[in-house]
């Protein structure tokens, strides 16, 4: 039995999530191939070939694949699906965008966002905003699975797989118009070692930037936000941590002015160390925080900046 892992990439870089999905794949089978979808992505394929345990790398390129058009991505995967018993896709918004299409075309049940491989046909996944874990056994001959990267350790480097070019695919009745990516020198939210998140208490987009961003920069952290802060327009949607945003599990998560709604906790409660700063001592965030500071962020964050400076940060 062989497994196909679809790489997480942006045409120029192979993202770390790929290594984590490879770890999940190796729990299903020793025969793991990686498919890189993109345009001008030879460098990504070469990087994927170095992941330990990968048998071979397949590279499919086209204009539509370079823009992450779901119809094209699904078609490129379907063209190869006959050779595999399981197809594993990172559970990013890009991965979740096309994996269900592949499942529908193969007439199989997609298995979304798995956090554990119990056996080759049995998997565990969070439901109800992570308030329950469901273990399901698939009766389908072929499995289409999205994998929550933060739930698996990254596969190491040291492989030397071959890279093979396979057919690209087009976008059909969908046309790419434009994209507007947030330019940032900060680490990527999903892969950052430290995340600093702000909540509704910030009160405005200006205040969010003034308070959260300098602290994040001081810590070399990525910036996150609660759904309430995104909803109120204080932070872009791409910052959203939670049930319907990104799931993160950094070494350190700093929640500032975040009450700790169920939906937010779903996205960060697997962090190694959680810090909460909130003036409401009864805020639910304190029930999951390792270190809680009951204080108004307006005084606490400047003090924290000073304390970090004093500690040589």
């Amino acid at each position: 039995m062989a497994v196909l892992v679809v790489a997480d990439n942006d045409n120029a870089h192979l993202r770390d999530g790929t290594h984590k999905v490879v770890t999940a794949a190796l729990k299903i089978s020793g025969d793991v191939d990686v498919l890189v979808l993109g345009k001008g992505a030879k460098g990504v394929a070469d990087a994927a070939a170095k992941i330990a345990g990968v048998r071979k790398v397949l590279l499919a390129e086209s204009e539509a694949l370079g823009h992450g058009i779901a119809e094209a991505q699904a078609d490129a995967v379907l063209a190869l699906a006959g050779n595999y018993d399981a197809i594993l896709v990172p559970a990013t918004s890009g991965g979740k965008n096309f994996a269900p299409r592949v499942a529908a075309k193969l007439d199989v049940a997609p298995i979304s966002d798995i956090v554990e491989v119990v056996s080759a046909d049995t998997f565990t996944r969070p439901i109800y905003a992570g308030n329950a874990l469901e273990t399901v056994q698939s009766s389908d001959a072929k499995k289409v699975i999205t994998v929550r990267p933060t739930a698996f350790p990254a596969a190491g480097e040291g492989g030397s797989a071959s890279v093979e070019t396979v057919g690209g695919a087009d976008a059909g009745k969908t046309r790419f118009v434009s994209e507007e990516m947030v330019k940032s020198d900060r680490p990527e939210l999903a892969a950052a070692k430290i995340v600093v998140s702000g909540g509704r208490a910030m009160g405005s987009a200006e205040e969010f930037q003034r308070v959260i961003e300098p602290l994040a920069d001081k810590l070399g952290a990525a910036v996150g936000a609660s759904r309430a802060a995104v909803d109120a327009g204080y932070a872009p949607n791409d910052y959203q941590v939670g049930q319907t945003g990104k799931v993160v599990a950094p070494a350190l998560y700093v929640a500032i002015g975040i009450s700790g709604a169920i939906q937010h906790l779903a996205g960060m409660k697997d962090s190694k160390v959680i810090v909460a700063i909130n003036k409401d001592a009864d805020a639910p965030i304190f029930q999951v925080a390792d270190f809680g500071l009951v204080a108004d962020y307006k005084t606490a964050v400047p003090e924290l900046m000073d304390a970090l400076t004093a500690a040589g940060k």
Partner: protein
Amino acid sequence: MKVLVPVKRVIDYNVKARVKADQTGVDLANVKMSMNPFCEIAVEEAVRLKEKGVATEVVIVSIGPAQAQETIRTALAMGGDRGVLITTDADPEPLAVAKLLAAVVAEENPNLVLMGKQAIDGDNNAVGQMLSALLGWPQATYASAIEVSGSTAKVTREVDGGLQVLDVDLPAVITADLRLNEPRYASLPNIMKAKKKEIAQKAVADYSVDIAPRLKVIKVTEPAKRSAGIKVETAADLVSKLNTAGVL
């Protein structure tokens, strides 16, 4: 232009789900149920398309227990024109839901299916994409803006790292993200009016669709609980604790 909006009755957004002691699922007895929040956003967008004169009819469809009728009524009170309820006591998987919706599309012939990106119970984020694939219609998921002009729709999508704009031919499937709009509260006169709107009663057997599950639920368990840690008094104290923990 006819818009079809599938809606799902789920546990209320503010209620914390509790796992049953026998590990067979989540306890929904006596729990407040509501329309899935992303479905509400989709209904709102469809009603706004009608108010702009772009859509001529908004049809609401739900698949679920008899009480899903209330969910449809809520959508009709927001401005939907009529409903279709496919009653089932099974909890169909995304593949079955997509197939049933494809059958409804074949009957209704809408120009657009507008639906939520994800239901907050199963958290699959799959049905819209699957429906699009089954129908051979273009998809535009995670929409934060929709502009319909003639036979195409320009959709701004929330993607990893920013925004993407796609132009799709209609008919298409579009799924709603959080920032697409803020759903209205239905007014009392509209709630009264909605009671008179037609809801067609259907059964799964009316469609030639096999909804047998493909996944066997082995168990449903509670995740490991995280225990509360300690309160620190000052920022300096916090930094020293974090240094000791080795996370700075």
